């Protein structure tokens, strides 16, 4: 085991820095899809880290939930997002924030859901 | 039994007029009440005549504890002539107003004033005296402005201003007196006041408060304005009876006979004498007999003021002076009343009847002047006899000036008679002369007869001296008057020669009624107008300007915009999170410091 320590350290450093780098990339990327993909990879790397930290249960959970299902969620959401931003009518960019728009009649009406 | 009956009369004297005044309110009762109204002073008259000398009625539950009483002859005499004057004026008034609209209204105020006037004579404590005095003062405003002419309204205004000032002064005086003497009973107050610390202030306030009613010089302006414009019966009681309330107030309140107050005595005498002459001088210039009579009242009250001053100077002689003052008041009250009523009668008559009336007017006129064998002679002579009690310097002054005032009065009376002789346009007519004549005639009779019953010393002892002493001033006055008339007649003729027009303006300088009021109002009116404008227009405008400028500044500061900007930048996500981080840091840092 003693001999493995430097190796372990290299692994740890790579994993830790990789996590930070992937996290950074996922958040900084200009392309949302790329972000999500990077985030999923980030999740997988996290699972590795859990395993490295002797937490296999967490690793399993992370792999299944954190990376897998969250990724699915994110991708689905992105797809819906793209649907709507294409389908949505042109938005009046100059429209004042609704919180402070007293005259906006529509905003003051009760919204009773979609039914 | 009789005693009991009489003591029953005591409250009636005050209650009767009051109840009748209130009973005027319902429309249905009015004419009946008006018919009854003149007779209301009868209980008072009865009381004055019949009451035992120690009649007293305590009503501890009324006001602050009220005591009505008829304690001495002074009160009895005041009550007598007051009641008589009110009685006869009332009867006179019924005829005076016959066929006129305002009689009910007139009688309301008439009765209320009467209540006050009679009540204040009977009141033995400060508060109830003040009550009746106030009642009388305010109610008689209704008498003054009864005619609603611009003159009467003006007079009313002046009158009410002075009344209010008087009321306030009087209130202050009474409060001070009560505090100083720990009593509200007049006889105790008088005693206590002699030594009281605040005596001088009280006396000053009393001089003002009662002086306004009594027409003391400087506070007399209302008299020549109000008396002529009031209906004649009202003038009679105003000038004959109510004016004496001021005098009675002095007699009740001032520490007369208790302590020698030389300075105050001098002040009263000076004021009194000045008024005596001033009244005559201004009165002579008047052309309306009622105005003239009002000035005469000022003059006569001046003499009474002087008499009070005499009493203040010589406490020892006060017991002797008091009956004289009372007598003088009685005499003046009756004769002035008769004169005023007479003016009304003359105006209502014409022809021979008018002349007869005019002739009869001589009696009160002469009495006023103090002609021999009249009540005036007795009063004046007896008054003169008291001069000796004054300090020497004053004896000399009074000895010269008092007769001189007699001459002056005679002159004034003469002028009055002359004025009355001349018929005035607009006179005579709608009054029922008969109804007017007999109360007046009764009063004239009273002038002739009544005072003699109350002369303090038996007349036999001094009547001779008095006769001579009183003859010459009247004669002198008469001579002067005749001379003046003759001179005037010549002047008139010469004027006629010159320009063929008669303009009395050139003959006699006329001082407008109210005399010093005219210059006073000249500078007071603009000042008041200015104050009013300031208060009504300028200050509110300034306030508006100030407020609107403040508002403008406020809105110019863009508060709304600023607040909205700050709030929206706080809700800006990055800002909010940076704040969050900072707060967390700060909290941790603060914890570290601890």
């Amino acid at each position, binding site marked *: 085991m003693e001999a493995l320590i430097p190796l372990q350290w290299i692994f740890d450093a790579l994993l830790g820095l990789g996590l930070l780098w992937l996290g950074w990339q996922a958040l900084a990327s200009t392309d949302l899809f790329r972000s999500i993909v990077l985030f999923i990879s980030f999740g997988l790397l996290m699972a590795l880290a859990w395993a490295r930290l002797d937490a296999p249960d967490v690793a399993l959970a992370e792999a299944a939930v954190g990376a897998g299902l969250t990724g699915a969620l994110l991708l689905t959401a992105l797809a819906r997002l793209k649907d709507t931003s294409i389908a949505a009518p042109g938005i009046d960019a100059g429209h004042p924030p609704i919180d402070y728009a007293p005259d906006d009649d529509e905003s003051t009406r009760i919204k009773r859901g979609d039914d | 039994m009789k005693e009991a009956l009489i003591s029953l009369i005591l409250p009636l004297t005050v209650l009767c007029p009051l109840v009748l005044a209130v009973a005027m309110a319902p429309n249905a009762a009015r004419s009946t009440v008006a018919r009854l109204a003149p007779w209301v002073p009868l209980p008072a008259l009865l009381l004055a005549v019949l009451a035992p000398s120690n009649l007293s009625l305590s009503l501890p*539950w009324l*006001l602050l504890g009220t005591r009505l009483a008829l304690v001495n002859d002074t009160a009895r005499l005041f009550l007598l002539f007051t009641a008589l004057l009110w009685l006869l004026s009332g009867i006179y008034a019924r005829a005076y107003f016959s066929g006129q609209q305002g009689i009910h209204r007139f009688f309301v105020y008439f009765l209320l004033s009467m209540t006050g006037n009679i009540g204040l004579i009977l009141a033995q404590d400060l*508060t109830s005296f*003040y*009550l009746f005095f*106030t*009642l009388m003062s305010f109610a008689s405003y209704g008498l003054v402005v009864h005619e609603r002419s611009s003159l009467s309204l003006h007079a009313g205004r002046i009158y009410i201003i002075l009344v209010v000032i008087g009321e*306030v002064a009087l*209130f202050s005086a009474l409060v001070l007196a009560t505090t100083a003497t720990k009593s509200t009973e007049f006889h105790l107050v008088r005693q206590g006041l002699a030594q009281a610390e605040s005596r001088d202030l009280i006396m000053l306030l009393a001089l003002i408060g009662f002086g306004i009613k009594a027409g003391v010089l400087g506070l007399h302006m209302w008299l020549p304005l109000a008396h002529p414009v009031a209906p004649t019966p009202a003038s009679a009681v105003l000038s004959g009876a109510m004016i004496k309330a001021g005098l009675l107030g002095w007699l009740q309140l001032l520490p007369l006979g208790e302590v020698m107050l030389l300075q105050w005595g001098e002040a009263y005498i000076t004021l009194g004498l000045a008024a005596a002459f001033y009244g005559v001088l201004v009165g002579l210039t008047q052309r309306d007999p009622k105005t003239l009579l009002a000035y005469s009242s000022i003059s006569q009250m001046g003499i009474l003021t002087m008499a009070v001053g005499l009493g203040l100077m010589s406490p020892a002689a006060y017991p002797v002076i008091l009956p004289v003052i009372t007598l003088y008041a009685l005499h003046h009250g009756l004769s002035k009343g008769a004169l005023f009523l007479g003016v009304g009668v003359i105006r209502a008559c014409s022809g021979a009847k008018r002349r007869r009336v005019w002739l009869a007017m001589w009696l009160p006129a002469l009495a006023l002047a103090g002609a021999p064998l009249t009540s005036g002679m007795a009063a004046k002579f007896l008054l003169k006899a008291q001069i000796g009690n004054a300090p020497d310097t004053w004896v000399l002054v009074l000895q010269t000036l008092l007769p001189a005032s007699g001459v002056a009065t005679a002159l004034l009376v003469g002028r009055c008679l002359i004025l009355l002789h001349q018929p005035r346009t607009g006179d005579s007519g709608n009054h029922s002369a008969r109804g007017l004549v007999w109360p007046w005639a009764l009063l004239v009779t009273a002038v002739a007869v009544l005072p003699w019953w109350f002369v303090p010393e038996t007349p036999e002892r001094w009547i001779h001296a008095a006769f001579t002493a009183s003859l010459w001033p009247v004669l002198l006055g008469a001579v002067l008057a005749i001379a003046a008339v003759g001179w005037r007649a010549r002047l008139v003729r010469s004027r006629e020669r010159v320009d063929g027009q008669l303009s009395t303006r050139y003959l006699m300088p006329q001082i407008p009624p109210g005399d010093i009021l005219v210059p006073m109002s000249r500078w007071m009116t603009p000042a008041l107008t200015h104050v009013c404008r300031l208060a009504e227009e300028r200050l509110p405008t300034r306030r508006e300007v100030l407020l609107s400028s403040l508002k403008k500044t406020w809105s110019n500061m863009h508060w709304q915009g600023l607040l909205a900007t700050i709030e929206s930048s706080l809700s800006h996500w990055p800002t909010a999170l940076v704040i969050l981080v900072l707060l967390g840091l700060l909290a941790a840092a603060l914890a570290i410091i601890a």
Partner: protein
Amino acid sequence: MNLDPWVPILVIASSLLPGLIIFSLAENSVRLRTGLNLTGALLNLVLVGWMLWGVYLGHRYEARLALLPDLELVLLADTLSLLFITLSAVLWLVTTVYAIGYLKGSPHRSRFFGFFSLCVTSTAGVSLAGNLITFLLFYELLTLATYPLIMHHGTEVARRAGRSYLVYTIFGGALLLLGTVWLYTLTGTLEFTPRGLLNGMGEEHRPALRAIFALLIAGLGVKAALVPLHGWLPQAMVAPAPVSALLHAVAVVKAGAFGIVRIVYEVFGVEFAAGLGVTAPLAWLAATTIIYGSLRALFQDDLKRMLAFSTVSQVSYITLGVAIVGPVATIGGMVHLVHQGFMKITLFLCAGNLAETLGVHKISEMNGVGRRMPWTMAAFTVGAFGMIGAPPVAGFISKWYLGLGALEAGQGWVIFVLAGSSLLTASYFLPVLHAVWFREPPVCWPKEHHFGLRETAWALLLPPLATAVMALGAGLLAAMPFSPLNWAKLIAAREFYLP
């Protein structure tokens, strides 16, 4: 079982419960509402009468409820509270009758009478309060109950008046609260105690106590309309006449004045306060208010506005009487609490009658009104003369005792204030009276209603007449055993240990 503690509670309930029920009544259930109103008022009166008699015989009616672990709500009937509550009970009955007549057929009556009853409840509470916290409670309740009444008409003017009223009173309430809390931190108790609960307070607290006094007086001065805190009062006259009458004569203004009385006598103790040197400024403040109010009244043409400024002036007599420090002045101040109530309510009810019957609102429209409405104006005249201080109307008694008290306490300057105020009061009331009685009426009135042969409706006419008679009676019969004056003397005896 001792029923005594329940009596004050019943008094409160006698107006509170009808009020709450009335809120829920339909607009058109006139008879039930009227019945409730009158029953409540009569019951209230009877209960107060019972207490009056009891206290006279030496009973003590006291109810306590813990508010905080060491602070209680106390309802207590003592001589002082009875002075005020009797006034409010009597005048409530009168005003209720009047209001029923006044609001006949107008909208929102359930709301009006509900708040009206609440207003009386809080006034009763203010008078029965046995400690400062209870007082504060009802004092604030009063603010809330009167606000809707002032706004009743719902016009823009009324809203502005209501707003102004709120700004002033809420601000005052805040100051009062602060003062009360501060006081409590120093004393640990807020009980009203004859001759003051601060007696024996150490030297080191004097600056703080002065500040507390200033806070409390400022807080109460708003309702008592002390200059410069009076601004709301003239505006509040837009309210319906019965409300104005109640505001000016009984509830709001008096609550402030009554509070000042309580503070000076039963919190600080009048002699202690004098020792602190706080009564003299208070007296000057009151004097300034008296003169200022009269001066402002002088230049008003709106009748109710003039009366409002007159209130500003008159209410400060109470404060003045308190601040003079002395038994006799106390009597004067206390008795004016009642007397001013009788007189001012008369005046306001008469003003209401004029507005309601003839549409007359301004003094310049009042020419000859005396001919058209002699009874109303007779009552008005009585009230006016009372304000001036002319005997035998009650105002005279107050002024008399104030004057005596001032002199007794060696404060002669007060006489000048009284005299000046009387002069000014006369100068704004007498021209009105002159116009009313001696001027010719106009050909037609601004907005006349006819009531057959009578000058106006019975419900409108009787209340002012009754109060006028009370004003007259309180003065004329001042020396009678149960007169306000004698009651005030009882209070003064308690506060000064007089025999």
